[in-house]
């Protein structure tokens, strides 16, 4: 190992996975299972991504792990990866992705000096996940106002309440599930506002919180947060057909926290920086890198899986990761092309199953568009 000004160079791995959430761990497991040498780098002190905050049971059929809580899926993934000898660097952030598939990785916590290492991967999997969108309104920066994911992290991972009287903004599945989990942790959800005319997430989740007495205001938004040093009041109001506030409909609600669940967007910066071709698709959460049936991006040897390539759910992220893991094993010559095809067919069948039904269909179409765009791109280059 050569050291130059505190940077350790030239560590080589067959596969480097950036992000140890469901998609990254699944890719690592499938590649390692077939004999590849895999390194996972993860920014947190524990891998598993957001799975350890998902204390509810997942939907789908039994082959998709339905009825199993996210925390249990996470625990099993980490165990399997460990048994397969997957190397995991924790508290490690990819701060750069260079030519020749070199990744600069910074390791350490903020209260101490960090080290930087450069790792070269024959194949790279980008599995950074997504980040929460915000809604801006007057006073939105007051302490006590946070992402719904942040509220969920506090109660389920850190076991501390971020507030006791909470207004939830947004009725997608995150808004609905986190509202319920806030109540499970002992907080009151004083109201939920949704600017659209209808609830965004699954009716079964909405029914649970409605039965618990949470008022759900559709066609409403939050206009203002008031307070000194902490949010104390939220002003909500009706919105018209053009999403504009309707004067005279304001209501003042006493709160000590506001959680914002306004969707997520892919954390695709590394892929974009590396020149992977992207496309904007609102169904997938914004700009996302295109990929082929193996989850390989337009940059050869760089794979994109999970929310990075379109915001969906943990179960689709797992399957996309598996797909990349199998494809990588084949590309490295660990298995034959035939073996890979059989396995990939099974995974695609499961993915198609997950992308069906009223909520899955739009995502299925968006992912199909993404694949079609990739094919068009490849054809143009040939």
């Amino acid at each position, binding site marked *: 190992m050569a050291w130059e000004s505190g940077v350790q160079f030239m560590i080589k791995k067959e596969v480097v996975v950036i992000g140890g959430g469901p998609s990254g761990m699944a890719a690592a497991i499938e590649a390692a299972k077939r004999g590849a040498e895999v390194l996972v780098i993860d*920014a*947190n*002190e524990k891998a598993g991504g957001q799975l350890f905050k998902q*204390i509810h049971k997942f939907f789908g059929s039994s082959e998709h792990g339905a009825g199993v*809580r996210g925390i249990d899926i996470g625990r099993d993934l980490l165990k399997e990866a460990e048994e397969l000898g997957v190397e995991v660097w924790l508290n490690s952030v990819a701060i750069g992705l260079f030519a020749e598939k070199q990744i600069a990785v910074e390791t350490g*916590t*903020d*209260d*101490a*000096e960090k080290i930087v290492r450069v790792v070269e991967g024959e194949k790279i999997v980008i599995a950074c996940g997504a*980040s*929460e969108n915000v809604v801006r309104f007057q006073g939105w*920066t*007051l*302490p*006590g*106002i*946070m*992402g719904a*994911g*942040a*509220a969920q*992290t*506090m*109660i*389920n991972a*850190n*076991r*501390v*309440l*971020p507030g*006791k009287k909470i207004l939830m903004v947004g009725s997608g599945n995150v808004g609905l599930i986190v509202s319920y989990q806030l109540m*499970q*942790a*002992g907080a009151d959800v004083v109201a939920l506002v949704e600017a659209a005319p209808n609830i965004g997430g699954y009716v079964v989740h909405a029914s649970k919180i409605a039965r618990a007495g949470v008022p759900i205001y559709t066609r409403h938004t939050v206009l203002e947060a008031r307070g000194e*040093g*902490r949010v104390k009041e939220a002003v909500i109001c009706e919105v018209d057909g053009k999403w504009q506030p309707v004067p005279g409909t304001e209501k003042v609600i006493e709160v000590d926290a506001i959680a914002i669940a306004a969707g997520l967007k892919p954390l695709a910066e590394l892929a974009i920086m590396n020149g992977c071709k992207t496309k904007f698709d609102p169904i997938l959460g914004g700009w996302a890198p295109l990929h082929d049936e193996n989850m390989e991006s337009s940059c050869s040897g760089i794979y994109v899986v999970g929310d990075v390539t379109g915001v969906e759910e943990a179960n689709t992220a797992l399957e996309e990761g598996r797909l990349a893991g199998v494809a990588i094993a084949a590309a490295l010559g660990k298995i034959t092309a035939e073996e890979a095809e059989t396995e990939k067919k099974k995974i695609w069948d499961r993915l198609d199953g997950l992308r069906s039904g009223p909520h899955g269909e739009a995502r299925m179409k968006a992912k199909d568009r993404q694949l079609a765009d990739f094919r068009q791109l490849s054809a143009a280059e040939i």
Partner: protein
Amino acid sequence: MCLRVEDHVVLGKDEPGKTVEITVDGRKLAAKEGEKILAALLANGIIVNRYTVKRKEPRGLFCGIGQCTDCAMIVNGKPNVRTCITPVKEGMVIETQHGLGKRGAIHD
């Protein structure tokens, strides 16, 4: 006001863990070893972590996963420590950060 989730319908009882002492703006507080600094502060009713550079506005927890830096504080004299992802250690000295913060006399 108890803000810790001691018992939970799905997760069960929280493990008590080892209690350590930290100092926050000169005040001694009890925290759980290894918990995130931000969590220890929230449990003690402290929600402002820093004040912004220009307008001196208060900021606190926003993303909770080390992405937004709104919860940065001065820890053992080192500014810009993201408290939502940095674990508590015995004897940590934590200060509210004003603006960009300056490296203090205490070093890690």
